[in-house]
């Protein structure tokens, strides 16, 4: 070939070689003073604690805008003081007085008082996003909240209740939630905007960086790329061990695994089962699995003539091979569970009583025959296309086929699935739900209680309503249990409700979700619990 061509090829090779030399990274380790996490930040749209409605935002915000009280890291049914150092309840149970610490400071060094806390709580109710339910379900309402939640001095908050709810329940359900973070009232009011006559209470301002009391503050957020947190040196506890937390958006499990193995990240939070198995075998890496207070379950439309029959629904309980799933597909993903209250929550049935079913095709057939369908029937079954959901669905479909039930599977995007679930547009639905707080009331108040079963009520936030299922006796029992101030009696009432729901309810719960997090062994004291992932104690 001609000299020109040869020269060109030689030049290209030389350039490539030169480039590779220059390109070899000097070192591939994470900075000593930063915790680097890889996650999927797609769902993160705001850092305003009043608006955050998804798992990632919640995880991060609990380290930036800490709640008034917090769950004990080793036992989530115990509540520990945080910004509120003590509280007392009036004899009639209708007034709760909370005393805040006097050493609370914002990252700027400015003192944080009960007036900031009062404003922060009021705005959650006024803004009316999903989190406001944490307050409105206990009777706090936009029109009255100024009276119901009051700061009587720099350190005291007084809450006026409409009913004498047990204080343990309120602490768990309301005061420990991420929406009780203390924001800087002065800054918020100064930067509030008014759109169409509605005050946004600083929602737009706090979206990119909330100014709160917490161990870290948000210093950078490049959407879908990275979130950077920096240590708050005016934190009232001892300052966080690591100066920065860097959260990188890496949406592919394989990529996260490679980054972790190479040491370019310290923590990987989105990994599929195959990658987890490989990482578990790696001596440099520790895989921590946390049993969460969330479920994957089957929901039946009780308005359907066939699925409305409790015996038919009971038959489905025997079509799920809990043991089999637990040993195979659910590795790193779930723990079999049939009771609607997750293990670990206050009032939950223990592991054995909470999962009494096993695969039993004969029992299922007998129940179907009793219900009047000895030859089975055909129904449509919709499921998410993500993660292991389709595999679990195929499992149920296969077992159902053996007793004559033909389930026509349809996979779809999550957004599509939620839309159909919320509008009652399904026959058999496989979906998930995360409990808001570690008390039996959390699941029961949404999955068992249905205040109004009419279509017009549009109570799409109640999975019980979505299934068109209502049992007035259960509504009453749940209300009684909720108000019961003797813990032992409350637990017994909840056990009773769980046993009933396991047999008759509109859902067949399959497993409690497990969240696997892979951490490099150099990272110490990274506290990973169902409701809190604590960044400030982590060190290297």
């Amino acid at each position: 070939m001609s000299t020109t061509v040869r020269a060109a090829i030689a030049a290209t090779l030389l350039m490539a070689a030169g480039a590779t030399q220059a390109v070899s990274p000097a070192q591939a380790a994470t900075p000593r003073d930063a915790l680097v996490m890889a996650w999927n930040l797609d769902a993160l749209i705001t850092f305003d604690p009043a608006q955050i409605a998804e798992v990632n935002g919640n995880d991060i915000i609990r380290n930036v805008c800490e709640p008034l009280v917090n769950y004990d890291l080793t036992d989530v049914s115990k509540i520990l003081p945080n910004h509120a150092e003590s509280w007392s309840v009036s004899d009639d149970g209708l007034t709760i007085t909370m005393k805040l610490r006097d050493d609370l400071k914002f990252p700027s060094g400015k003192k944080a008082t009960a007036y900031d806390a009062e404003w922060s709580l009021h705005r959650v109710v006024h803004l009316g996003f999903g989190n406001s339910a944490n307050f409105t379900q206990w009777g706090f309402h936009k029109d009255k909240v100024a009276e119901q939640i009051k700061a009587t001095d720099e350190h005291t908050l007084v809450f006026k209740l409409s009913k004498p709810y047990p204080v343990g329940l309120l602490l768990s359900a309301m005061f420990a939630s991420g929406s009780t973070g203390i924001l800087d009232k002065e800054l918020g009011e100064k930067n509030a905007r008014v759109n169409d006559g509605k005050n946004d209470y600083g929602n737009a301002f706090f979206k990119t960086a909330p100014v709160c009391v917490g161990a870290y503050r948000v210093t950078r957020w490049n959407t879908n790329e990275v979130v950077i947190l920096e240590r708050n040196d005016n934190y009232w506890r001892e300052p966080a061990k690591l100066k920065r937390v860097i959260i990188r958006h890496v949406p592919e499990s394989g990529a996260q695994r490679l980054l972790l193995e190479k040491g370019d990240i310290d923590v990987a939070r989105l990994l599929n089962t195959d990658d987890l198995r490989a990482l578990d075998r790696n001596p440099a890496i520790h895989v921590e699995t946390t049993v969460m207070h969330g479920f994957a379950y089957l929901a039946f439309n009780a308005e359907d003539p066939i699925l409305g029959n409790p015996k038919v629904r009971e038959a489905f309980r025997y079509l799920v091979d809990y043991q089999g799933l637990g040993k195979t597909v659910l590795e790193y993903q779930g723990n079999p569970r049939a009771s609607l209250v997750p293990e670990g929550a206050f009032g939950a049935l223990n592991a054995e009583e909470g999962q009494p079913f096993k695969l039993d095709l004969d029992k299922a057939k007998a129940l179907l025959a009793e219900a009047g369908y000895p030859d089975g029937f055909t129904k449509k079954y919709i499921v998410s296309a993500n993660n292991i959901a389709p595999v679990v669905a195929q499992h149920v479909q296969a077992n159902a086929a053996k007793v004559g039930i033909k389930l026509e599977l349809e996979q779809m995007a999550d957004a599509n699935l939620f839309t159909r679930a919320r509008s009652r547009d399904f026959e058999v639905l496989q979906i998930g739900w995360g409990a808001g707080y570690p008390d039996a009331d959390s699941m029961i108040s949404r999955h068992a209680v249905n205040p109004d079963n009419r279509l017009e009520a549009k109570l799409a936030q109640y999975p019980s309503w979505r299934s068109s299922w209502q049992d007035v006796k259960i509504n009453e029992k749940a209300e009684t249990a909720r108000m019961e101030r003797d813990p032992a009696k409350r637990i017994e009432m909840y056990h009773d409700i769980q046993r009933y729901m396991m047999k008759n309810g509109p859902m067949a719960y399959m497993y409690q979700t497990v969240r696997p997090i892979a951490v490099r062994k150099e990272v110490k004291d990274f506290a990973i619990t169902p409701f809190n992932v604590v960044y400030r104690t982590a060190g290297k």
Partner: protein
Amino acid sequence: MPRWVPALGKQVASVAVTLLGLLALTFFMGRMLPIDPVIAIIGEQAEKETYDMVYAQLGLDKPLYVQFGLFIRDMMTLEFGDALFTGNKVADDLARVFPATIELATVSIIIGIGLGVPFGMLAAVYRGSLLDHVARFIGLLGYSSPNFWLGLMGLILFYATLGWVGGPGRLDVMFIDMVEPVTGMLLIDSLLAGEPEVFWDAFSHIVLPASILGYSSMAYISRMTRSFMLEQLGQEYIVAARVKGLSRWQVVWRHAFRNILVQLITVIALAYAFLLEGAVLTETVFAWPGFGRYLTSGLLAGDMNAVLACVLIIGIIFVGLNLLSDLLYRALDPRTR
């Protein structure tokens, strides 16, 4: 009026009608999708009051044609609205993601052209030889291998095992925000800011994804180059030129190549346009915060503001590259003037 005004007017009108039709089709298809954009903002556990409030805020209660009309009106002022699934203005999002894709696409097409054209030429000139078969085989592999698989394999080999390139992401963690985003393209911005370390880090992160995307482009371009060249080399004027005494390569470069340039540019423009659309799978594997991922996420969240703006951009890219090709034809081929 001058002769070119009506011609230009016709062009502009035709482009506008095309884009409008594209947007209308996308908008109405999008509204027919059973995906609820409100849920992306409020979460699926929210109650009816919250839902209604956000629904009204987004203007979803208005009739479809009104919503479309409002969108077109806002678009005229470059006001693309808010992206529901990121919480930012769509215009801000695009200013962030599009340069990232432009950078990746441009480096990829340079690799594609730089390797594809020579390979194609060599394959045509040495047709039937071992070189030809090897070039075609490599091309076929590049064309048929799935990008995300190649991406992961590339990461395992060149990043994890050999450590020759940077990992997923555009930059190493310690270089984030060291450079002011002027164009949004790190390779350029780092040079403008005089930060050679950042430049080399950005280079090490872009070289693998660009090579993979470039590999597919190269396969396509080399194939087309080869086939165009073969067509030319079979013509009589080639024989005449050789008889006149010109060397083989003089004939190839000075005559045959000049004649295929017009067709080649069409092919390259098309390849570039596809790269600019954003290779969502490659962007996912390499955690590249680009246009492809943005459009896909917007689609899955039912976010019509983001999707429509993206569709508009893609429409403009294709139209633009078409126009650019037309101009290049006129410059290169005297017969079209």
